[in-house]
């Protein structure tokens, strides 16, 4: 990845990526230990589990998988001494279109992930952990499995880790090509060897009835790496890198029509959308103008060049004032993107220029969702394929006048009514493309 080969942009701060692409850095354990690896695990093993969870809470780390749930709060759901087995599972099923950060960590710095997971395992009283890696990262599975073997050999995993008396078994589990497995309860079903149908919540919240119906924490690859970094940097310092409520750095993955696409690790709220596209990524391709941005993975609602958002921002005296914020001045953190009606999600920013046809782009995403709907529940199974059939027909020039209205209504009938968040993920693009670019859909239907 070219961007990682370049020196960090001044807006960047490489924390989880600090070694991933450093010249001469290798994924083996000796290199990791030489760079101070497993010192944080040792530190954590000297703490009480609840102190570790408190540190994670103080760091304001939010999950990096897409939903953005505060990590420490999630961990706090686990009752340490409830007498039940607990599990952690790393979600390395990265497959939200526009998101591409896990491979670099898994390939180049696997021990960072393993250390973060070992800290979590100790904090959550977990003795069995799985790393779920999508099969489209075939090499990553081998690299991580080898890293686990090394860690066991060195006593960082296995029986009585680092003399603490605590045991951790850890294994790699490969997926088999299903976006739905990124949904944590689907991932759990997949790990149990069943059809990966997401579970209904309630009652099957993973922290209560997760893997093998026991309390389970599922975190993203990047999230576990941040855990390790919190103990290296200190939770206060770590939190300060970000904004209140969204601590630390985030890997922003920029793709599409910019000069320098790539993953950029930037403090949460550390750039505006404009800075990200024009400074960090070198702007739009020559001769092209910005048309649209999907800011947080394909499921997040699209934003249109030139639009502005009415939102409350901190005024000069510290009090909140109403302000109209132009698109490119949007600060890239969870709160601001939510205020703009979309989300930071998994950090996947897809940029499209003025040569792009929005109906074509939406149809591309609809094809993705139609292919990936697991088919368990009615609205998603039937609705998402219907949507795809409609936009495919429209792309083929056979749209009819009612199509845009029906599209919107079908998406409305899916979102919020399905077993899992896939329903929203598939509907939000439809709803937002239609809302933001109505003229492009009206023209295609006659």
């Amino acid at each position, binding site marked *: 990845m070219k961007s990682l080969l370049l020196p960090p942009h001044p807006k960047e701060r490489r924390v989880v990526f600090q070694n991933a692409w450093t010249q001469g850095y290798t994924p083996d354990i000796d290199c990791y230990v030489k760079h101070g690896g497993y010192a944080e695990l040792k530190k954590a093993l000297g703490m009480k589990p609840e102190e570790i969870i408190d540190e994670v809470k103080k760091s304001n780390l939010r999950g990096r998988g897409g939903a953005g749930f505060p990590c420490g709060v999630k961990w706090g759901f686990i009752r340490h001494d409830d007498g039940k087995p607990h599990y952690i599972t790393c979600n390395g099923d990265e497959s939200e279109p526009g998101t591409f950060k896990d491979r670099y960590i898994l390939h180049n710095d696997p021990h960072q992930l393993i250390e973060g997971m070992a800290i979590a395992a100790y904090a959550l009283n977990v003795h069995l952990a799985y790393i779920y890696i999508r099969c489209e990262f075939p090499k990553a599975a081998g690299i991580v499995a080898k890293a686990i073997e090394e860690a066991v050999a060195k006593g960082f995993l296995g029986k009585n880790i680092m003399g603490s008396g605590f045991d951790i078994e850890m294994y790699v589990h490969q997926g088999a090509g*299903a976006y739905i497995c990124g949904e944590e309860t689907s991932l759990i079903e997949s790990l149990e060897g069943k*059809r990966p*149908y997401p579970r*209904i919540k*309630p*009652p099957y919240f993973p922290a209560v009835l997760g893997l093998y119906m026991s309390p389970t924490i599922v975190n993203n690859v990047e999230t576990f790496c941040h855990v390790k970094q919190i103990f290296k940097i200190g939770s206060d310092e770590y939190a300060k890198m970000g904004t209140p409520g969204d601590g630390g750095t985030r890997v922003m993955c920029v793709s599409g029509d910019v000069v320098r696409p790539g993953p950029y690790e930037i403090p949460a709220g550390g750039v505006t959308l404009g800075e990200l596209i024009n400074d960090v990524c070198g702007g739009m391709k020559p001769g092209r103008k910005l048309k649209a941005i999907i800011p947080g993975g394909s499921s997040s609602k699209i934003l249109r060049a030139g639009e502005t958002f009415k939102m409350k921002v901190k005024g000069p005296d510290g009090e909140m004032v109403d302000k109209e914020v132009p698109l490119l001045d949007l600060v890239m953190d969870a709160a601001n993107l939510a205020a703009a009606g979309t989300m930071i999600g998994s950090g996947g920013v897809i940029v499209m220029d003025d040569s792009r046809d929005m109906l074509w782009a939406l149809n591309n995403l609809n094809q993705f969702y*139609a*292919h*990936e*709907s*697991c*088919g*368990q*529940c*009615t*609205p998603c*199974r*039937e*609705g*998402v*394929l*219907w949507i795809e*059939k*409609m936009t495919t*027909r429209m792309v083929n020039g056979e749209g*009819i006048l*009612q199509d845009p209205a*029906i599209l919107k209504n079908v998406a409305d*009938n*899916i979102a*919020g*009514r*399905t*077993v899992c968040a896939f329903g929203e993920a598939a509907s939000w693009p439809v709803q937002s493309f239609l809302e933001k670019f109505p003229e492009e859909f009206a023209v295609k239907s006659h």
Partner: protein
Amino acid sequence: MSATATTAEPKVETSVPMINVQVDGEWKQFPKGTRLIEACMKAGSYVPHYCYHPALSSPGNCRMCLIEMGTPKMGPDRKPELGEDGRPLINWSPKPAICCALEVSEGIGVRTNSPLVEECRKGVMEFLLINHPLDCPICDKAGECRLQEFSVEYGHDASRFEDNKVKKPKHVDIGERIVLDDERCILCSRCIRFMKEVAKDDVLGFVDRGSHTSLTVHPGKRLDSNYSLNTVDICPVGALTSKDFRFKMRVWFLKETKTIDTNCGTGCNILIGSRENKIHRITPRENEAVNAYWMPDSHRLNYTYNHREDRLKAPLVKGSSVRWKDAITAAGDGIKAQAGSQTAIIASGRMTNEELFLARRLAKTLVTDLIDIRPRAQKGDGFLVSDDANPNTRGARLLGATGATPGSRLPEIAAGIAGGSVTSLIVLGENPLHCGLTETDLSKLSSLVVIDILPNGATKFATVVLPGSASAEKRGSMVNVNGRLQRLNRALSAPGEARDDWETLSDLIKALGGEGASSLEDLFKQMASETSALAGLNFGKIGDLGIDLKS
């Protein structure tokens, strides 16, 4: 197994804590543990649903039961804020929720009839129909199909779907008794869950994914469990159909009679679906205390004997058809010609209590104690096929038609006939050749009176044959293996001149100088007054679901 055949008294309501739930604006109480969907329906707010079944796990996949839900609004003291009526104020969630998987919890509110709920139902209905073949005119489920039912309220008058429907396998032969149409299937997974959770034969599953997901049986395997037809019953649409019933009859023409199965001692509660005095299908009827919602295929398909051409239709004396009155007289005279103690009675564990009571009275009238039934021990399946193939051994024992070991007196009867001390035999619904007697024995008898529905190898030896009624043709009661008293109801009328067996027995007893009965209710009253286990009961009190007898 989820069918609980319990003899325990239901728990006293007050021992279960009651939970307050607001349903459509009214506060109601439900026992803790009640599923929310059941609570709504108990409160009179029907919630349409496809995948939910009370005896199966809740996958929550059909999304038809979406409702609006709210939790009690909490004050700063973390206690519920109360409204003017002293009831908790409710924080309504903006997102609809399914109510099939949740249990009631204190202070929650449910709206089952709001505009949002209606919109949700309409949305789900439309989704379910876009890829559905809409072939109701040729579908066996028509008339009792949930898609049809809910379309009436939540369907659209015209389809907005302009594209091609998904194609899936049709007419799939997935088992001995079942045909699958995948295009009709709405993927609710009821059948899969039934086979896995209840029948314990995990052969059904979904293959492929998304909109192309299809129900299938594993290649090389068959849906041949003796419970397979229950999947047809619980299929909310016409995806699974019974080969036996396929294209035979529109369901709305069927007269449904609530009765019980008599193929074994379980006494599954059933509905007999008949038209013009012909049975077209038998389906299980819900009874938590007996068979839950299920029944064995072998039992439900065993009905064709009712319609056999060779049914006994007229009374016969020495092989010639006579009037009933003459037949009874001939039977009575034949029996009276022998000493009472020389008469034996082979009764049946397939007879009703009322008939067995009269058989016992017949024995008393004749002053003989040679009465027993034919035992039918078998290897049950540990579920609904009982170890006793007789449906009413318990009743026979209770009424003195047999002893602790059914059939133990049959050798004595055989020996008596062979030795000449027994010269008269009355056979009620059994083949004496299966009860230890030989043709030689039968030919020795001076009097052989038979009440039965079909001829058998012994019929030709009978001096008098009195045509009786099959279990689908009569009223009466039976006691199942667990001591539950249940009622038979008449679905068909008996063929020809065949009569209710109790009437025949009553007439025969009168011909022999004993006391008869004027009606089944009267008969039950006489029986209850002479049988302590039935004290205080009458025929009506048994009800549709039966009652447990005190042991």
